[in-house]
């Protein structure tokens, strides 16, 4: 890995300032970025670690909303959201492995927007709001295709606000070597309708399966999606699964998520 200057601010203001340097890059838990640096696929001049900012590390309930700080680890969400939002905790507890969950952060996962990451599906299905140091971004506006988001250069995710759904469940068909989702589906039933977030499947990254949302909003039962088909067009195809296989999994996992929620 190429060397860089390491900055570890303890406040958000210091972090914003450090990130304004040329070729500066934010570092969350590093569970994707550090392997990427090792492969020399990224070579920032300055790496700004956000994990020293204590005020960004929290999970707490605020009325009907679960608020998760930008540097909360997957392990924290798995433990601390279990009673308040079990669907989200059940998603977090299956990311990577225990040691990865103790470092990886929600902000890092969302900012990276890996097309097979679990969090984007949960954020879309829960209709969460991504809060940054400068604004609030609705889930539907945040994800912008593989590894691309609405975040500007140097913008930091400070918090994610999840409206707590009536029922929710995440089903992950795991690619066992990487622990990423071959396909993952989060279903969330809100008072005003159902939302379905799908990760791992599309070449455009995470997406909402809106036909299933309509069907499930009318009849919240696994068989409500029986008559629907998912097109294999634009689905990811690789040695682990064809586009057709992934399309098939989207429907199967949606049904399982509804049944388990």
């Amino acid at each position, binding site marked *: 890995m190429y060397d860089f200057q390491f900055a570890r601010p303890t406040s958000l203001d210091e972090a914003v300032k450090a990130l304004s340097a040329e070729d500066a890059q934010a570092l969350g838990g590093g569970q994707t970025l*550090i392997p990427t640096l090792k492969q020399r696929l990224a070579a920032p001049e300055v790496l700004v670690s956000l994990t020293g900012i204590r005020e960004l590390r929290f999970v707490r309930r605020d009325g009907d909303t679960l608020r998760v700080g930008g540097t909360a680890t997957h392990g924290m969400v798995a433990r601390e959201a279990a009673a308040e939002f079990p669907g989200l905790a059940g998603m977090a507890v299956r990311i990577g*492995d225990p*040691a990865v969950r*103790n470092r990886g952060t929600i902000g890092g996962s969302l900012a990276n927007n890996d097309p097979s990451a679990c969090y984007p599906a949960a954020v879309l299905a829960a209709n969460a709001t991504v809060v940054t140091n400068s604004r609030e971004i609705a889930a539907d506006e945040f994800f912008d295709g593989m590894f691309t988001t609405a975040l500007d250069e140097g913008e930091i995710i400070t918090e994610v606000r999840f409206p707590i759904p009536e029922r929710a469940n995440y089903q992950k068909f795991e690619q066992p070597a990487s622990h990423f989702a071959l396909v993952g589906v989060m279903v969330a039933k809100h008072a005003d309708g159902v939302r379905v977030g799908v990760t791992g499947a599309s070449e455009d990254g995470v997406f909402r399966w809106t036909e299933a949302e309509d069907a499930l909003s009318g009849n919240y039962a696994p068989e409500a999606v029986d008559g629907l088909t998912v097109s294999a067009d634009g689905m990811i195809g690789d040695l682990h699964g064809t586009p057709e296989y992934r399309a098939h999994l989207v429907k199967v996992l949606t049904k399982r998520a509804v049944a388990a929620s």
Partner: protein
Amino acid sequence: MTKVSMTVNGKAVSGEVEGRTLLATFLREDLHLTGTHIGCDTSQCGACVVHVDGQAVKACTMFAAEAEGAEVTTIEGIAAADGTMSPVQKAFQEHHGLQCGFCTPGMVMSAHALLAENPDPSEAEIREYLQGNICRCTGYHNIVKAIAAAAAEMRPVAAE
């Protein structure tokens, strides 16, 4: 270069590191604590698992500078000062939980982290917790047996 200070196995240590110096590298090359192994260098194998502030992490996927001020425990800090092995270490020996031994430091560190969180894990929970620790020779069965045996030994006996 950045100055880092942390506590490793109960001892205050400090050193000068580059930004890119991994915690695993700092432990091995600066502190000469070579029990923390680097197996894959891609965060998959878990041979480098150490505890940072009580939590299991992969020391090859964390920078030394990120451990500033932290309490770090490596495999060298697991046995008692007089060399008496921990119940997990003893159980690995008794249940033949290792062959070549390369993955063992990470396995033992993960096992201690699991038992601190969950003193009475089921076999399935032990296997799930070891998802990030790869062994290429024992085939896991004896590792799982060893951890279950250590758990039984470490649990406080219920008052009668």
